[in-house]
């Protein structure tokens, strides 16, 4: 806890804010993406966006697992709960995400579906053991941060031959998303100009900081892996700007207290044992991306809810005015969307970015006073954060 206190000291923050301002080269702009939704939330929560000088533009990335889950995949879970009457376990964040016709897991529950909020897949497996007469399905989402837990639980279910447990696997890969953002060759994503990345600390703790090297070299973009406290973020921003000034494109580890170059090898081995890369996966906002997500290996297919219930994935379009896809790839900020704060609020979300606390729209709605200016003056004068 003392460590956290030190990473929140306002004096240290002030010195870093000064250093950042001094590091800026006159006449140039800095378009920096924080990939991870946790970073977006922290920047808004601590009010740090207000303190960054105008040449710095923070672009909020797609690193919010709830936000990038396409509606069709969520609808699979809703249908399982409603039509197949399974006991569906989900992280709380997913409950209010709207599926087809604004139906959600929460609304399904109010109509009698058995939807349970769990803190992780272990809880879901425990429910399966407790209710051997029920089919228990865990709706698994997340980047590499949560994948090892899902893999561990599937492996445990396999060892213990739990017959009534399965996983709807929607785990996605960070590197694929970064590639999609940077690759002009991508069909579905119009490229967004980005000068450098604040890299996701928790993901790096699993996959290792070296895993980001290929991206940094291929696209010549500096990546600074950061923690989630104010001092973490400000230090990483300073280091990122210094790299940009020197035209460097290195992976720098500012989260060494948790992330190592090689990452967590045991977790990696576990993922590799239980899961394999899908040929393709449709991301919300980024579209269909090759080799960008994971599914269970054939050894574990008994636990794959997609196979067990013969699920097909419908392509369900986003609300026609919803700009979540643009927000997710940094092509616009939340306040640019006409639905923001009017038809779409955290209490009644239309798009996924308004649901999760890590979603950029929810972060703006909950924390950014600037959104009120837009409401008061009817303009999008707040479009640059």
């Amino acid at each position, binding site marked *: *806890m003392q460590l956290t206190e030190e990473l929140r000291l306002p004096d240290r*923050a002030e010195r870093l804010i000064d250093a950042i301002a001094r590091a800026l080269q006159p006449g140039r702009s800095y378009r920096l993406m924080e990939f991870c939704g946790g970073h977006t939330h922290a920047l808004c*929560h601590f009010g740090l*966006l*207000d*303190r960054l000088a105008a040449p710095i533009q923070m672009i909020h990335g797609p690193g919010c697992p709830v936000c990038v889950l396409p509606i069709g995949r969520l609808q699979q879970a809703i249908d399982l709960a409603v039509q197949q009457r399974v006991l569906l376990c989900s992280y709380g964040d997913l409950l209010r995400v709207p599926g087809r016709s604004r139906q959600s897991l929460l609304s399904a529950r109010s109509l009698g579906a058995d939807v349970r909020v769990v803190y992780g897949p272990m809880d879901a497996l425990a429910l399966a053991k407790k209710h051997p007469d029920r089919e228990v399905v865990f709706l698994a989402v997340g980047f590499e941060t949560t994948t090892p837990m899902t893999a561990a639980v599937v492996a445990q279910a396999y060892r213990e031959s739990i017959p009534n447990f399965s996983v709807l696997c929607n785990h996605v890969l960070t590197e694929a998303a970064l590639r999609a953002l940077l690759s002009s060759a991508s069909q579905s994503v119009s490229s967004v100009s980005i000068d450098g990345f604040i890299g996701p600390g928790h993901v790096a703790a699993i996959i290792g900081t070296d895993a980001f090297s290929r991206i940094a070299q291929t696209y010549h973009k500096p990546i600074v892996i950061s923690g989630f406290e104010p001092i973490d973020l400000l230090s990483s921003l300073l280091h990122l700007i210094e790299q940009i000034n020197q035209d460097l494109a290195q992976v720098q580890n500012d989260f060494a207290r948790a992330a190592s170059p090689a990452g967590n090898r045991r977790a990696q081995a576990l993922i590799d044992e239980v899961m394999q890369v899908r040929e393709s996966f449709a991301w919300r906002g980024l579209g269909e991306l090759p080799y960008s997500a994971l599914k269970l290996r054939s050894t574990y297919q008994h636990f794959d809810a997609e196979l067990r219930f013969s699920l097909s994935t419908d392509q369900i379009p986003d609300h026609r005015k919803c700009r979540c896809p643009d927000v997710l790839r940094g092509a616009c900020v939340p306040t640019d969307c006409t639905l923001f704060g009017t038809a779409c609020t955290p209490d009644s979300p239309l798009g996924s970015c308004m649901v999760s606390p890590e979603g950029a729209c929810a972060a703006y709605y909950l924390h950014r*006073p600037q959104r*009120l200016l837009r409401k008061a003056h009817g303009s999008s004068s707040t479009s640059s954060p």
Partner: protein
Amino acid sequence: MVRHPLRPLDLKNGRVELAHGSGGRASHQLVDELFTRHFHSSQLAACHDAGILPHVSGRIAVSTDSYVVSPLFFPGGCIGDLAVNGSINDVAMSGAKPLALTVGFILEEGFQLADLDRIAAAIARASQNASVPIISGDTKVVERGKADGVFLSTTCVGVIPEGVHIDPSRARPSDAIIVSGTIGDHGTTILSCREGLSFDCDLESDSAALHEMVSAMLCAAPDLHVLRDPTRGGVSAALHEIAATAQVGMRLWESAVPVHPTVRSACQLLGLDPLHLACEGRLLAICPTDAVEPVLAAMRAHPLGSQAAVIGEVIADFPGFVQLQTAYGGHRLIDWPAGEQLPRIC
């Protein structure tokens, strides 16, 4: 004491039975052998159906509140003193001098008489400490499983002194927002006791009756605009309510808000905001800038207000919204607390 043709209550190992709420002999025995051991008011002794107040002059303030806190006993208090202090504070927040209390018990069949005895003792102690007598009471018993041990309901009556006009609609731009002490102590204490969330904590609930400090504040500055005790929903909910009623905005300064280090740590750990956590012995005061010094002095001279601080200001912009200048100089909105973050806090 009336002698009952029943065996005496076993206050050590006995349990509440349905008959204790029936209105018959067992009910009277519970009153005589348990409650009257603690409650000595002449009003109760008179055995009227109603408590009768002496003639009072002035506007009357009345507030009623129910208490379902879990757990029933926690560091720094229990449901009993919480129920007494809570209703006294609600009346005090209108600027009134509290005169009398009523208490209703809803007991679950099987509840331990020893615990009921402790709760009754706490109620009596809190009432005596506050010099606000209990003048009427009621007890009901429901079947096992239909309640959770004991629920309490208290009502407090008070009289508002001449010249005092406390009203949430009186919050005006440029008014100062003052808090009487550290925020979120009660909420964090309850959280630390909860099953599944238990963590070591050197904290106690801040449960306390605030009317004497309010009286001192009103002596120092009769033109206080608004008083509010930030209970459920914490400082955030209280300020949102005032902002909506008065159609003003609020701006807080994060570094000025007093937060106990343990509360700060617990909030970081659990992803909570101290501004959303309940207090049971703190108040928010909104007053004109020229009243700030006398009000602060009066608060700091009282033990319950020793850490009183100005934490923000009322603004004209963004009526209905509360924003915070963070410790890092930026701004963020404070949201209404999300529902059911922490049920049964009081």
